[in-house]
């Protein structure tokens, strides 16, 4: 996993609540055995019409938002299906940070497995950033070490993040390798489990 330390990138406003993972990456793109290449399906029904032509009005299709790295979205971003294809698609498209007032639980977890930073801010702060992102200069700075988002006009907002998750993101740590270091504890747990709940063995 790539480390996330600091990001200076264009931010696009997506002022819709409850953007679900079906909208982020529709079902037809889930029939892949790869993690890569999903950017083409990101927000597909919002980006393209039924003939597959770009919808010029959609924010990510507008020339000033080409190369976007941050999305600022409405409440409860990422609800619905557990598909990790959603963060994969965002990352493949170049998005490395999503800012909202709230995220759905499974999507939030999935972000941290992929170096995509979900930032939770207060409603008025998100609104301020959303307004600035609609303007001519919409480059935001996200500093994970300092836990801050700085708007183009220089307004800085602090965000909270779990310290363990922060460390993993800053260092790009693979949690499987880390958990495997607890191998002996897992062995002990399994031995106790086999004794206490023997019917669970050899199911």
């Amino acid at each position, binding site marked *: 996993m790539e480390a996330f330390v600091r990001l200076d990138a264009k931010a696009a406003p997506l002022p819709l609540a409850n953007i679900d993972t079906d909208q982020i990456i529709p079902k037809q793109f889930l*029939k892949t055995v790869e993690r890569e290449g999903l950017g083409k399906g990101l927000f597909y*029904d919002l980006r393209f019409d039924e003939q597959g032509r770009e919808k010029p009005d959609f924010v990510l299709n507008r020339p000033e938002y080409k190369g976007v790295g941050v999305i600022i979205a409405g409440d409860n971003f990422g609800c619905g299906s557990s598909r990790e294809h959603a963060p994969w698609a965002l990352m493949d498209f170049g998005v490395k940070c999503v800012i909202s007032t*709230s995220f759905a639980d499974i999507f939030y977890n999935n972000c941290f497995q992929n170096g995509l930073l979900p930032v939770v801010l207060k409603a008025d702060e998100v609104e301020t950033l959303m307004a600035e992102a609609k303007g001519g200069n919409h480059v935001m700075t996200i500093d994970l070490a300092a836990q801050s988002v700085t708007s183009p006009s220089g307004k800085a907002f602090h965000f909270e993040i779990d310290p363990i998750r922060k460390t993993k993101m800053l260092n790009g740590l693979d949690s499987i390798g880390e958990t495997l270091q607890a191998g002996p504890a897992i062995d002990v747990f399994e031995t106790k489990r086999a004794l206490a709940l023997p019917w669970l063995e050899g199911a």
Partner: protein
Amino acid sequence: MPGKTLYDKIWDAHVVDQLDGEAILYIDLHLIHEVTSPQAFAGLRTHGRKVRRPDLTLAVADHNVPTEGQALGVAKVADEEARLQLETLARNVKDNGIEFFPMGDVRNGIVHVVGPEQGRTQPGMTIVCGDSHTSTHGAFGALAHGIGTSEVEHVLATQTLRQTKAKNLRVTIEGEPAPGVGAKDLALAVIGEIGTAGGTGYVIEYAGSAVRALSMEGRMTLCNLTIEAGARAGLVAPDETTFEYLKGRPSTPKAGGWEMAHAYWKSLFSDPDAHFDREVVIDAAKIAPLVTWGTSPEDVVPVTGKAPDPAAFATPDKRAAVARALDYMGLTAGQPISEAKVDVVFIGSCTNSRIEDLRAAAKIAEGRHVASGVRAMVVPGSGLVRDQAEAEGLDAIFTAAGFEWREPGCSMCLAMNPDRLEPGQRCASTSNRNFEGRQGRGGRTHLMSPSMAAAAAIAGHIADVREYL
């Protein structure tokens, strides 16, 4: 020391190691399917890692299988990408010694139907799957939730998951529901009450006389839809209904083991003095048969109700969201919801494809006929459900009434296989998500119970099942 909730008890029994704020939690059962597992197995191969406990892992093929011609085998699946995913799963489970019910096997079906049906799902377990509706298994008093593919890989490699503990929310549903009101209506009522993000950060325990009175199928429907309220997992404490269901299933403990397991299962309930961070109480008697009008599962309305007026909402954002949903759904503000004509009826999905669901729908369909111009399909949740329904003659009732009787799979719930809506088509669906495009681009989904969906098929529009009882 204060008492523990059911969630606290299961959590505590599975902590392998506690780090700062994050626990390593042991996983008793890992269910996998073709769509969210290939990248996890690829990750294992890249790092030279093995599956730690293949015996605690079970695989099915459900999301993208066609619902006809399954006996022809995977080689005849027309969709090349779907075929590749199915073949990849078959190879991965073979290489790693994981039990697998392939497409066409009578034991195969939707992962959340198969686990309980086989007795793999048991009280007190931790259960995960790369699918958000894993919450279904909470009906047995198991802590069960969906995970992403990186976590699938983590569980395959370590049989554990890194988790932070959620808060406790108890939803108590008291009283007796009116005739025609079932588990699906209770679940939609809960989502309508607390909202689609209302349960975020919580595990919900369902309690109360209306929950106790539900069959296991009903409890599975209720827990299944917990994720649509934003909560990762839903739980119902196991009781005699649970034990009765479990008895004699292929993977439940046999003589000797059963008594030990039974004694343990009976300890799985929230202590009377347990602390819940939040409590919600719902009166079952006040719930009417519900349908969704919009594009979020929280957009519920009684079948006798109307599509909402955006002007009635407090904030500009909410007004815009309601207007957008009405526009997408092809409804006008204040329109009685029963005026909505349906093109397609879908009875199936991990929410409502079990034998009891099919019986409820068949009861409405019996001796009647699907309205002209409506395509109605019934997709059983597993091969065993299909066999059982056929043994009871339900297939004959459905086909005589003009419904298609299909083979098991997720089907039109998420439309990854050939079963999908065309743009603008309106569907009465027993599934779980009415998101934009969920059942096919431009498709319009109204969520409802199996008997309500059957009534809609007969009427040709959204209809009050109470007029068909």
